[in-house]
């Protein structure tokens, strides 16, 4: 619990802040540079979210808010480094056997739990066995079912034996480790008090949670890497985004995610630009139009290609995302080795689209601007979910572009629950406009393998290609990154060629952060990946305790 009794909040008028920024620039020069080693955690970083956290156990956290907070409280064996590479976290190093079946982790020896107990290999074994126990109800269990045996070799060595090689293993084993000495006494981890007042090994320890209002984390000065630069990490719940924006500009919060409109047009005022720095990084998401391949019209490859050629992705990005996006051609992260940068298919070409449609037998026989075939007009219904303005804008633009090549498209916007239930699960749609979040591990099984068409899989467009199935399986078994990348490049090319989706664009993740924070490093891994290295210059501190 927090011990300090007093707090002093220093309010600075805007002009003073601007001079302070100049001072900060001076203080960043080598002469005055701050030595990280003797930095004492100070000040507080206040961030907000529209919803409360749910559960503070990494194996159960299934919403972005809880997962983000778990990331500050817990550590995994591995973690994702600055450039999306896998680096050791609780593990000093690891060895993978030649057949890829055995991974041995050598753990760091100076790690302590927040309650002072030592972290050992037993905690690791306990954590993954808890995930594999169906009574825990971890939603991520399927990422670990290939594990045959977990063996504690000695206090600081743990060995995982797999039933078959699994390329996602190192990423999945980065799941936050929970303390055995705490949870072995808990009959039901879901309902344990420690799921809401957690004990981890991470740079921040849990301090206070006022449901629906805020959560406070306090710097763990004994953190095994180094003490974090910011003393308190505060997370406030502000459900309304326009109020959130006013709080950011007036200093009530120090950071928030900005949408493209706010980023471009609301950040020009002196209040904003004097206080807030903007950062923009490529987001791990892509937006696409998926075609139901069981649909008689859309099962024709020429038609899907034509629809893809008819969309001007650049214009789409400029109009719907205010320019904050990158064209997409395949299902991997654009900044990863798995994405084949040489695939540049479906550059905007309406003439080619018309030719392809004509080849497929679609002609405008009655001169009304809409194509016909066998007496039927080319009509297509595009379904998307409610509550996402950007997506609705994209749908409207695509509607206009398709009309130019003679395709009449109708847009249907449906509330999320009904959208899943009536359209996705029952596969009752012609085309859908949606986005995928792309995980670090390039595993396409759940979305593109033909096994995932039925049984609640996510291949709702019914894409089935024997070769792609084999490549996905091979990719899952290939632990060598270069070889796996080569397999993924092949998949990428086939998917682009067969156009089951029109891959539209990758979005940007945009964030505004108060200028008093230094050490922010926008990287492929995002803006917050090195949060423990952030600090506030002594003169800039706002909250003094």
């Amino acid at each position, binding site marked *: 619990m927090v011990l300090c009794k007093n707090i002093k909040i220093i309010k600075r008028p805007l002009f003073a802040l601007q001079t302070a920024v100049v001072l900060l620039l001076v203080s960043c020069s080598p002469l005055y540079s701050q030595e990280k080693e003797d930095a004492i955690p100070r000040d507080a970083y206040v961030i907000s979210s529209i919803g409360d956290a749910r559960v503070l156990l990494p194996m159960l956290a299934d919403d972005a808010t809880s997962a983000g907070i778990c990331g500050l409280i817990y550590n995994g064996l591995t973690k994702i480094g600055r450039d999306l590479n896998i680096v050791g976290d609780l593990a000093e190093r690891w060895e993978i056997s030649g057949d890829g079946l055995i991974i041995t982790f050598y753990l760091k020896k100076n790690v302590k739990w927040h309650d002072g107990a030592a972290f050992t290999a037993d905690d690791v074994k306990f954590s993954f066995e808890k995930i594999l126990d169906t009574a825990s109800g971890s*939603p991520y269990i*399927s990422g670990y079912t290939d594990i045959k045996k977990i063996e504690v070799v000695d206090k600081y060595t743990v060995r995982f034996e797999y039933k078959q090689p699994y390329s996602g293993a190192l990423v999945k084993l980065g799941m936050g480790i929970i303390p055995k000495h705490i949870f072995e006494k808990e009959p039901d981890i879901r309902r344990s008090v420690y*799921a809401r007042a957690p004990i981890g090994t991470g740079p921040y320890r849990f301090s*206070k949670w006022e449901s*629906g209002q805020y959560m406070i984390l306090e710097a763990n000065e004994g953190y095994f890497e180094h003490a974090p630069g910011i003393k308190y990490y505060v997370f406030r*719940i*502000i459900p309304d985004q326009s*109020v959130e924006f006013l709080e950011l500009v007036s200093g*009530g919060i120090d950071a928030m995610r900005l949408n493209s409109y706010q980023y471009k047009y609301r950040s020009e005022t002196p209040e904003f630009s004097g206080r807030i720095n903007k950062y923009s990084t490529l987001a791990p998401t892509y937006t696409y139009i998926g075609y139901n391949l069981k649909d008689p019209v859309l099962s024709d490859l020429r038609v899907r290609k034509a629809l893809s050629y008819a969309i001007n992705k650049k214009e789409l990005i400029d109009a719907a995302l205010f320019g904050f996006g990158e064209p997409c051609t395949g299902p991997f992260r654009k900044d990863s080795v798995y994405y084949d940068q040489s695939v540049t298919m479906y550059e905007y070409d309406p003439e080619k689209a018309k030719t392809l449609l004509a080849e497929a037998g679609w002609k405008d026989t009655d001169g009304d601007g809409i194509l016909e075939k066998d007496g039927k007009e080319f009509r297509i219904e595009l379904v998307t979910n409610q509550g996402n303005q950007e997506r609705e804008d994209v749908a409207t633009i695509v509607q206009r572009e398709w009309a130019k090549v003679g395709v009449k498209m109708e847009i249907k916007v449906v509330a999320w629950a009904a959208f899943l239930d*009536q359209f996705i699960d029952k596969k009752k749609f012609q085309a859908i406009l949606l986005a995928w979040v792309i995980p670090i591990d390039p595993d396409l099984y759940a979305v593109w393998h033909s096994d995932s068409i039925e049984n609640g899989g996510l291949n709702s467009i019914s894409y089935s290609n024997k070769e792609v199935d084999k490549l996905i399986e091979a990719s899952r078994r290939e632990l060598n990154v270069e070889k796996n990348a080569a397999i993924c490049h092949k998949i990428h090319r086939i998917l682009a060629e067969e156009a089951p989706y029109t891959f539209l664009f990758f979005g940007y993740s945009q964030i505004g952060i108060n200028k008093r924070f230094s050490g922010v490093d926008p990287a492929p891994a995002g803006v917050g990946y090195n949060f423990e290295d952030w600090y506030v210059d002594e003169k800039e501190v706002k909250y003094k305790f």
Partner: protein
Amino acid sequence: MRKYIIKRLLLVIPMLIGISFLLFLVMHLSPSDPTAVRYGLNPEVSNSARENFNKLYGLDKPFLEQYLNWMGRFARMDFGNSFIDDAPVREKILSRLPATLLLEMVSLFVILLISLPLGITSAVKKGTKFDNISTITVFIGYAMPTFWLALVLIYIFGYKLEWFPISGMNPWYFQYLSGFDKIKDVLWHLVLPVAATSFGSLAVLSRYSRSSMIEIMEQQYIMTARAKGLTENRIIYVHALKNALLPVVTILGLSLPGLISGSFIFETIFAWPGMGRLGYEAIMNYDYPVVMGVSVMATLLTLFGILIADITYAFVDPRIRYERKK
């Protein structure tokens, strides 16, 4: 009277069963389910993990069995645990109730304080400039979209003038404040939300009290009072007012459930940690136990609110009797 109250209280039981059954049915009839909404398009969550979740929370059982299980727990005053964070529903409600009660009760107090004198004065000064202006003002408040008014108040008084906090009930450093500063801080945070919630609601009470006052003022006993030569103040505040407030009693009784169920719109805009947001978030997430907990509480309070209004009526209005005199 006692017999009547007991009869009414006993009636609550079948009504509660009927209402809760309908609620349960409506929730299950709506498309989708808790698991689909939560894990719908998450490639990292396999189908077997989703089935396991259903099993863990008893969602794989038939509808009637689920309802009877709920009813059984409810009879023992156990509302179950939330699907979303596994916290006991009772605790979730209790942690949110104080914030809503505080905001709603202060608002109600402010509404009464302003709208009753406003309505009565309007009635007494019917047709004057005062009546017209107050009528127009309360109707503007009534017609104005409440979320817009709230945002305008925040923008002007919170953001531009910095007189009041923009949002929230307690700042995160609340625990560092001294006792007196804590109270001051809460009051300071209350101003904008109370202003926003009250302004829109002035119309209802002030119009009710105005029209009932006008009706009373035309009664013959008022004429008698005037003929007796009583002062106008005595006529209005002693003779007319008591009777004019009768309909207000009903409205107050019916506003009881509103005191605890809160307002989703205001709580969202002002980041107020109350029941309205809890209920709304539960509905959006298909969190059945929380939805049931919140709505059953609202149902109970509605039923009691009506009962209390009826009983108070019998006390304040001698014309109303619930039992035949022997």
